[in-house]
C-alpha cells in the first residue's frame, strides 16, 4: 500500500504495463522529457527511452491515426491527447477507423489502443480545457469509454484499458488529478471494464455519477438513503447494476458535467424508462451543466452542477 494521487496512480499503471509488455508504447505531445503537462508520464522517458515514450509533432489526427496503424502491427499504443478539447480533430480516425477496423476486416485487424485525455472542468482553466463531451464517443459502436473517480480505481481501470483488445477512450478528470489521495495496493490488480460500482447502498433513491461529479454527489447525498453508483465505464455501461438499483429504490437522479441535451444521462434515463418503468415512483431527474456554450472561469461555477442543485433534485424525487 502506498498513498498516492491520481496522477501518481496513472503513472504507476503506465510504468507497470510498460514493464510487463514491451509492446506498450506511449505517444503524444510533450509526454517525453516534459512528462506530460500534468506529469502523468513523468519519468517514463528517462526510464524507457525515446523509442517507447514518443514526443510527437502537434497533430492530433495523425497521432491517433498512427496509433491505429501501430496497433494493427501488434503494438499497444497509449496515446495522450493533451486536453479533451483537442481530441475533436482525431474523431475522424476514432470513429471511422479505430472503432471499425475490426468489423471492416472481420477480425483480421484490430485497434487495441488507449487514448488518455484530461477531462472535465472545475479547475478554472482556459477555453477548450474543461470539456466533458464523453457522449460523442459513447455513441460509437466499437469504442469503449472509461472515467475513473479515484486514484485506486484509475490505476485498475488503466490496466484493464491497456489490456483490452479494443480501443478505449480513457477520460481523466482534471479536477481529481491531485485532489484525492488514496491508498493504492502495490499488487497488480485491475478494475474490470463494463462494470459499475455501488459506492454506497441506499433504499430511497439511486444517484448515478462518474468522474469528478461522483465526489460532488457524495457531498450531496448526506442525510438521504441514497444508493450511489459510480458508472466508471460509460460505454458500454453496466445496465444490470443500474437497473437493479433502480428497481430497488424506484427513484433516479443522474448527475453529469456535460449539458443535458444528448448527454450520457439521456441514455441512462432512456434505458431505465424502457426497462424499469414499472418500478419508478418519480420522474427521472438529470442534474447537468446548463445547455449553453461552456463558459470561461468567471461563470464556470454557475454552469456546473452544484451540491444545492443535486440535493434539490433528490428532494424533488422524494416528494413522490
Amino acid at each position, binding site marked *: 500500500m502506498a498513498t498516492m494521487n491520481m496522477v501518481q496512480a496513472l503513472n504507476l499503471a503506465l510504468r507497470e504495463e510498460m514493464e510487463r509488455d514491451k509492446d506498450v*508504447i506511449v505517444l503524444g505531445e510533450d509526454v517525453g522529457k516534459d512528462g506530460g503537462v500534468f506529469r502523468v508520464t513523468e519519468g517514463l522517458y528517462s526510464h524507457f527511452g525515446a*523509442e*517507447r515514450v*514518443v514526443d*510527437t*509533432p502537434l*497533430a492530433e*489526427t*495523425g497521432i*491517433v*491515426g*498512427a*496509433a*491505429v*496503424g*501501430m*496497433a*494493427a*502491427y*501488434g*503494438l499497444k*499504443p497509449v496515446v495522450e491527447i493533451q486536453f479533451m478539447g483537442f481530441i475533436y*480533430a482525431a474523431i*475522424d*480516425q476514432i470513429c*471511422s*477507423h479505430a472503432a471499425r*477496423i*475490426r*468489423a*471492416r*476486416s*472481420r*477480425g*483480421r*485487424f*484490430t485497434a487495441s489502443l488507449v487514448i488518455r485525455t484530461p477531462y472535465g472542468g472545475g479547475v478554472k482553466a482556459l477555453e477548450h480545457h474543461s470539456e466533458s463531451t464523453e457522449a460523442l464517443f459513447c455513441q460509437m*459502436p*466499437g469504442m*469503449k469509454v472509461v472515467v475513473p473517480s479515484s486514484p485506486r480505481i484509475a490505476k485498475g481501470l488503466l490496466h484493464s484499458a491497456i489490456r*483490452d*483488445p*479494443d480501443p478505449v477512450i480513457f477520460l481523466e478528470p482534471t479536477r481529481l488529478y491531485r485532489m484525492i489521495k488514496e491508498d493504492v495496493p502495490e499488487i497488480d490488480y485491475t478494475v474490470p471494464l*463494463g462494470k459499475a460500482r455501488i459506492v454506497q447502498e441506499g433504499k430511497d433513491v439511486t444517484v448515478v455519477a462518474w468522474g469528478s461529479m461522483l465526489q460532488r454527489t457524495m457531498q450531496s447525498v448526506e442525510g438521504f438513503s441514497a444508493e450511489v453508483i459510480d458508472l466508471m465505464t460509460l460505454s*458500454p455501461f*453496466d*445496465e*444490470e447494476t443500474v437497473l437493479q438499483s433502480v428497481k430497488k429504490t424506484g427513484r433516479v437522479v443522474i448527475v453529469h458535467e456535460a449539458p443535458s441535451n444528448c448527454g450520457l444521462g439521456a441514455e441512462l434515463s432512456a434505458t431505465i424508462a424502457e426497462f424499469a418503468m414499472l418500478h419508478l415512483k418519480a420522474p427521472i431527474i438529470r442534474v447537468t451543466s446548463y445547455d449553453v456554450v461552456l463558459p470561461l472561469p468567471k461563470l464556470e461555477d454557475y454552469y456546473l452542477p452544484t451540491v444545492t442543485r443535486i440535493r434539490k433534485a433528490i428532494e424533488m424525487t422524494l416528494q413522490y
Partner: protein
Amino acid sequence: MPEQILESYQVKRLDILDEKGTLDDSLAPSLADSELMRMYDLSILARTFDQRAISLQREGRLGTYPSIMGLEASQIGSALAAEESDWLFPTFRESGVYIAKGLPLDMIFQYWAGDERGMKIPDTMNVFPLAIPVGTQIAHAVGTAMAIKYRKDRAAALVYFGDGGSSRGDFHEGLNMAGVFQLPILFLCQNNQWAISVPREHQTASKTIAQKAIAYGFEGIQVDGNDIFAVFKATRAALEKAKKGGGPTLIECFTYRMGDHTTSDDASRYRTKDEIEKWKARDPILRLRLYLEKKGLLKEAYQEEVQARSKAAVDEAQKKAEKAQPPDPRDMFTYSSASLSQRQARQIKDF
C-alpha cells in the same frame, strides 16, 4: 528585396518506357523475362477483372465500383516492387494492388457486392482493407512504419493515395511525422489528374505533387505512372532505401483515370473527349505490349492465351462469389468488439 539564399531544391521526373514501347536501356530496371511476363499477365488480369466488375455493377450484381483503368502500371508496378514483409495501405481504387498481391478475386467481388468478408485479408498478406475516407489511410501507414522501426523489422510501409488525397490534412500530418521520425515508408500518390470532377490544377497550385516532399525534409520524385518500369524502379529503390534506414520517400505517379470516377459517375459532365483520347494513346498496357512484342516475348497466340486465362479466372471468381453463403446477421455483433456488451447480448437474440 534582395535576401540571402538558405536552401535550393529541384524536382525530378523519371521516364523509362515511352508510349511507342521504346525503352531507355540506361534507366531500365533489370528484370527477368518471367518478371516481365508477370507484369503483363497481371495487367491483363486486372483489366479483365475491372471490366467485369463494371458490367456486373450495371447488371445490379455489384454495388458502386471504382474502375482502375489506366492505373494498372502504377498499381501493379509498385505492388510487385514490394516484398512480402512490406505493408501496403490501399485506397478504394486499388483492385490492381490487391490482385498483384494475390487477394483472391472472388473476395474482391464479394466486397464490392457489399460483404465485409471480402476484406478479411488472409493472415499471410500484409495489406490493409481498402480505405474509403480519402487520405485517412496515410496515418495508418505511418503508425505501422513506426511499429516496424520500433521492432527493427526489415520491412517498409507503402501507402497509396490520389491527387485529391494530397489536399487532406492527413497527408500533411502523416508525411511530416514520417520525416521527423525518419520512418521506413513510401508515400505513393497516383496523380490521375482528377478527383471526381475536380481537375488536378484546382486541387493544388503546386506544379507537381512530388515537390510537396520538400516541405517534410525528404525526397520526392515524379515518375511516368503509365510506365510500369519507371514505377517499379522508383518504388523498389524507395523501399530499399527505407529498409536501409534512409527514411521516407514521396513518389508521384503521373497517370490518368481513364474511366468514370465510379459506376455512379458520368465524367462527360466535366471533361472532354479529346483529353480522354490523348490519354488512350498513353495506355500503360498498350506500351508494355508494344515493348514485349518488339522484344519478341509476346506472340499473338500467347496474347490470346492470357486473355482466355484471365477471363476464366474472372468467371471462376464471379461464380464463387455469387454462390457464397450470405453473411450471418450475427456477424454484425460478433465483429463489432471482441466480446458482446450487455445490450448487444440482448439484441443478438433477435437473430
